[in-house]
């Protein structure tokens, strides 16, 4: 995994974590409109980034479409990545 791919993956990991936070908060504050606006902004960004990642580097989820051969198993698994190699 080159530095550009790793940078995009880490950006997705960040936005995905923001979504976990808004998700849990909204579970117990379902009518908080400000939190919902933040969540929806993150959700849109997440869709954009994951689409860009999928087009360039292949799927992050097995439900995505794939070229031949099956792309899901091609990229490194999360525990195999050196996340600090480009710092």
């Amino acid at each position, binding site marked *: 995994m080159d530095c550009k791919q790793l940078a995009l993956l*880490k950006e997705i*990991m960040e936005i995905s974590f923001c979504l976990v936070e808004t998700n*849990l908060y909204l*579970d*117990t504050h379902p009518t908080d409109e400000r939190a919902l606006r933040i969540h929806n902004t993150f959700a849109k960004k997440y869709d954009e980034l994951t689409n860009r990642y999928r087009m360039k580097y292949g799927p992050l989820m*097995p439900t995505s479409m794939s070229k031949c051969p099956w792309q899901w198993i091609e990229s490194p698994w999360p*525990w195999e990545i050196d*996340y600090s190699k480009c710092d």
Partner: protein
Amino acid sequence: MWVYEKKLQYPVRVDTCNPALAAMILEQFGGADGELSAGIRYLTQRWHMPTNQAKGILTDIGTEELAHWEIIGTIVWKLVKDAKPEQIKGTPFEAHFVNHGKSPFPHNAAGYAWTATFIQSKEDPIADLHEDMAAEQKARATYEHLIRISDDPGVTDALRFLREREVVHFQRFGETLNIVQEYMDKKKYY
């Protein structure tokens, strides 16, 4: 159902080859207050929850715990993957190694295998949510013990992240308990 996302929740950095620390980190992989217990506990308690907020929070925190279990397994693996047998011999990881090699395995730091007796589900939302709040505090305490003994800066960084998640989860379970209590008071349900 669940769908796997091919990414970690947090970018785990490991700076040392460190079988002794790996053996201690396993407390959170298969210990009573570890991430596996947390995930199975919350996902098991969902069926009888009376409000949508409670069903949501147990589903979503339970799911996040499985992501934390994956982070812990990754820390353990990265700490031992390059270790030669002579670097393992004489460390607390040696007993693990003779049975499992370098594979993470769900037992605690002392080698006691994970068991469902670590968790509980009572079909009583008040009892279960109190257990969940206690579980988050016990996991936070375990992370603090681990941070005190960690001599790997990258591992310490990931442990601090995971400790903070316990604090957030405790907060959310507390809010859920209030919501459920209010709901039951309204229903005059004993």
